[in-house]
């Protein structure tokens, strides 16, 4: 009888062990960045060494430093990421996360982690993906294709300004891009924390955006949106050439930055071209029995 009990216990322990092993296995993730493959198991120690104190043990952004940090550390369990090359609402690519770790986030406590090796960063990307089941269940999102950039000229900058007005970017960013638009003081992020719009005019020659410093990065920012913040995606409402014009105008708002756009604007005497009048709407053919309004 006693032997049977022991046998039963061994079987139960074995089943529990296998179940635990398979559960742990289910959490293993990989990342793929070019020829690099990251492994979450290798990312565990790195996370505990470098990320844990802000992003927390469970990746929920509730590390012991979080209380002292503004903006708050990212909550990886929500799997909502600011810097993506994918459509709003979708997961970023592994490469998006890899670049974010290397670049860090300006105006926040997240430093550039460039001193880490490429493999380390790839392993960390894989580890970050263990915090949300979305990485297992969702299909890879479509990646935004950034077309080649047209030349910068005063026409493109001026048209970009028209779009800045028409799309009402100024309501948050302000007419001069100083982050002081009429809605600026009321903005909150998805966790109801106050958040300020980007101040284009702040910073020096090296001023950059949260999601990169190249013109293609600006293009991506407003086409995909900055998820988890009030900055929406304009991908459904701006055509690629118009988007580049907007990029060229936004560069001129970075008044302290040396840029091709600022040189072109300066060469034009600092003046934008007047807005082109909208083409007249085509006249609808009059119906044969059409009557003047109000006639009987």
């Amino acid at each position, binding site marked *: 009888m006693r032997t049977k009990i022991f046998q039963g216990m061994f079987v139960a322990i074995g089943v529990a062990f296998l179940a635990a092993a398979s559960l742990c296995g289910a959490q293993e993730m990989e990342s793929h960045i070019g020829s690099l493959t990251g492994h979450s198991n290798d990312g565990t120690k790195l996370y505990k060494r470098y990320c844990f104190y802000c992003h927390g043990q469970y990746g929920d952004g509730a590390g012991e430093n979080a209380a002292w940090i503004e903006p708050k550390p990212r909550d990886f369990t929500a799997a909502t990421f600011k810097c993506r090359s994918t459509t*709003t609402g979708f997961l970023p690519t592994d490469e998006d996360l890899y670049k974010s770790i290397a670049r860090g986030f300006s105006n926040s406590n997240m430093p550039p982690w460039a001193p880490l090796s490429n493999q380390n960063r790839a392993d960390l990307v894989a580890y970050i993906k263990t915090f949300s089941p979305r990485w297992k269940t969702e299909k890879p999102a479509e990646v935004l294709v950034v077309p080649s950039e047209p030349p910068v000229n005063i026409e493109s900058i001026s048209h970009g300004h028209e779009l800045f007005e028409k799309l*009402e970017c100024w309501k948050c960013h302000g007419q001069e891009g100083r982050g002081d638009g009429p809605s600026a003081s009321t903005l909150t992020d*998805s966790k109801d924390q106050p958040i300020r719009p980007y101040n284009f005019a702040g910073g020096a020659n090296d001023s950059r955006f949260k999601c990169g410093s190249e013109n293609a990065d600006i293009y991506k920012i407003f086409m995909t949106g900055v998820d988890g913040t009030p900055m*929406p995606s304009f991908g459904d*409402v701006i055509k690629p050439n118009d988007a580049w014009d907007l990029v060229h105008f936004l560069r001129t708002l970075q008044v302290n930055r040396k840029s091709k756009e600022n040189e072109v604007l300066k060469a034009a005497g600092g003046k934008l071209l007047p807005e082109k009048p909208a083409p007249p709407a085509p006249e609808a053919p009059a119906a044969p029995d059409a009557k003047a309004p109000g006639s009987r």
Partner: protein
Amino acid sequence: MSIKQTSMVAALLMACPALMFGAGTVKGKVTFTGTPVKQKPIDMSKEPSCAKQYPTPPTTQTIVTGEGDTLENVVVYISAGAPDETTAPTQAVTFEQKGCRYMPHVLAMRVNQELKVVNSDQTSHNIHPLAKVNREWNKSQPPGTPPLSEKFDKEEFISVKCNVHPWMRGYFAVLKTSHYDVSKDNGSFALPNLPPGKYTLTAWHEDYGTQTADVMIAGSETKNVNFAFKAKAF
């Protein structure tokens, strides 16, 4: 009747018990007790194109009441007892931004049903559903642009906001069942076409939370179920 016709009728009856045994209806009213918080007038002065649409400033819509202490914008749905319905209706539901407010304030829809978002205003809005279970997206919609088309693939009550106009708040109720209604200005709701069975009804309000009630439908009958929420003082 041919064998083919007979078998088709039998299949139809098996697929839809309501046809076989008759369909019941649950209807009732949603009311509140106590004194609800008075809704605040919205200051739209920063958005003149919307402000001018109202002779007097409109109020917030968190608590909308009617005569006889009735409560509007309560989602009443079958939360248990009915099978999950996986096929979404082909007809889209519409969420309109008009006068810098959402119409309707609470929009119920089915999982994977098409949602059309319309901007009828002369200003840009951004539609930002703060989903926790579904994907959280955020899209700009300038005036004159075509409706946005989206859908949610999981059941969830989702708060929606426009970041540019912070007073704009609404809700999406994404449901797995086709048996739902949103209470009208007189607090009434009706869930028709219920096959015989035992059901749990849930009533959800954005501020007052949820209440449930069990109901048994035996055949072609109408059962009355009322919900009374206790108003919050603050």
